[in-house]
């Protein structure tokens, strides 16, 4: 993994479930139709309660209500990110909004798997609870080779866990590309 991801951070709390990532009422839009799929970007993280949306102050939407893409590229979460339903619309919505990575202390396994197998977004795990160290709007940079995340606003760096078993699927860009590469299809 040599990938560098750089951009603004959006910080949320623990146990961000898939209804907060993309509320169920929006799951009706086509994921393929270019006009409709944009709405997943508009409503990404719109289920997060206002006081928890964009920590530490809160009250910040991930995507402005009149836009389809977010200004934030990296989402910082706490424990059990993506818990709840199996909807793949969740990592998809984050990708459509323009996010490229989530950094959390832990994931619910279906979200993690969906993010990786669909090639939507890279789910990094951090050792430290970065909610304490990164504020919404901070400029951050993930180095996927060195496995660190730098907060360019404060100048501090934090280690990330290696992606482990799934790194080959992440590198390939999802389960289909991985399987094709290994002659499984």
């Amino acid at each position, binding site marked *: 993994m040599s990938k560098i991801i750089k951009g603004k951070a959006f910080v949320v709390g623990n*146990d961000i479930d898939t*209804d907060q990532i993309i509320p169920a*009422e929006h799951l009706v839009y086509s994921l393929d139709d270019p006009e409709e799929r944009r709405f997943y970007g508009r409503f990404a993280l719109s289920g997060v*309660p206002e006081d928890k949306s964009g920590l530490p102050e809160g009250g910040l939407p991930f995507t402005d209500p009149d836009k389809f893409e977010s200004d934030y590229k990296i989402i910082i979460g706490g424990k059990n990110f993506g818990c709840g*339903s*199996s909807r793949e619309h969740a990592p998809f919505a984050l990708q459509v909004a323009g996010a490229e990575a989530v950094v959390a202390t832990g994931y619910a396994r*279906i979200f993690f798997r*969906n993010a990786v197998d669909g090639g939507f977004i890279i789910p990094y795990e951090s050792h430290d609870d970065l909610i304490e160290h990164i504020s919404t709007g901070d400029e951050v940079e993930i180095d996927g080779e060195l496995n660190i995340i730098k907060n360019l606003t404060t100048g501090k760096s934090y280690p990330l866990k290696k992606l482990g078993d799934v790194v080959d699927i992440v590198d390939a860009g999802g389960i289909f590309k991985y399987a094709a590469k290994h002659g499984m299809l």
Partner: protein
Amino acid sequence: MSMTLTEKILAKASGRTHVNAGETVWVDVDVLMTHDVCGPPTIGIFKREFGEDARVWDKDKVVIIPDHYIFTNDKYANRNVDILRAFAADQDLPHYYDVGSERYKGVCHVAMPEEGFTRPGEVLFGTDSHTCTAGAFGQFATGIGNTDAGFIMGTGKLWVKVPETMKFIFEGEIPPHIMAKDLILRIIGDIGVDGGTYRAMEFAGDGVMNMDMEGRMTLTNMVIEGGGKNGVVEPDEVTFDYVRKRTNKEFTPLYNDPDAKYHSVRTYKSSELEPMVAKPHSPDNKATVGEVKNTPLTRAYIGSCTGGKLSDFEAAARVIKGHEVGVETYVVPATTKIREDLKTTWYDGETLWDIFQNAGAHMGEASCAACLGGPSDTFGRLQGEEVCISTTNRNFPGRMGSKKAQVYLASPYTVAASAITGNITDPREYLPVEETV
């Protein structure tokens, strides 16, 4: 080397004699289930990757059960059902349960057992997190996303990491005012919403094995609320009797080896259990009913894959019989069969249907309905600042439709007693005293 039940199923499905927890294996899939929310994108991925004219790997192993957004005027939701219908016709799928037809079922996790798809020793993947319900039958069953489902649709295979097993033992007879829902809320409260992440959760002990299949399904259903990958109960005669009445298909039950290795074992004394709730806004935010007694409510909801089975309504009806509800109360049978059963199942001289209707409850059609909010015209959906007590499975912010609402999760007994008073109420206040023999 000894193995757990879950390890044995995955070993068999991957063609090995032995697997260890933590290993990644590719398994052959026995059943793939999908529904109206995740089916259309799964089909889209299947066609994108395998071609417009591709055929599913085994049409007898694909089950499509529309259930989420059925009784709505939302045009996009209805279009999703149209996509399923066209795909099922094009692929000539025998196990499609169309909306508006006599075959329509309702909630997939309850319809799957009804139709004989939950068979011991097999591997089931479904595009819904509550697919883990089927573990009650000694099946390996877990939820997946659309990409994985699209992959299975074309290949019949998927990679899976073999989970360690956490064992939960309930010793002794379950007290009459306690339901399976109280057990699982207690467990989730004890281990937290991520306490079972990446692991299998097994339920055992005479308290569990004396339950009928529906009680066991309530336990395995909410494994996902503890973060678990799959839930499991060792199959027995109760299981075989249920399954054989519903399918002629052969199956090979598997069991734990006596010296199988577990991640952990927790033992509960059934006699010490209390009626439980999960307070807003998390399924692990546990309290006993006594601790939140008299909390004012504005709504009660009985339904879903967790708490919308026939035995759930039988329990609620025993409490509600002869009373009027004090708050708006919604009754949503999980499947069309259960809805019919409500009209033909009698308790104390009245059908269950009449008991609820005479109490003033709103009676719904079989579907997932307001458990997950859904389109704005969904039956029973929370629209504002309601305080709801519900037999469903999740109470994260906004789950039942409104971010401003508060949801308490509880057993059908507790929800029914609370519906009568309009406050959170201990079911013992309304349960008829058992006649001792």
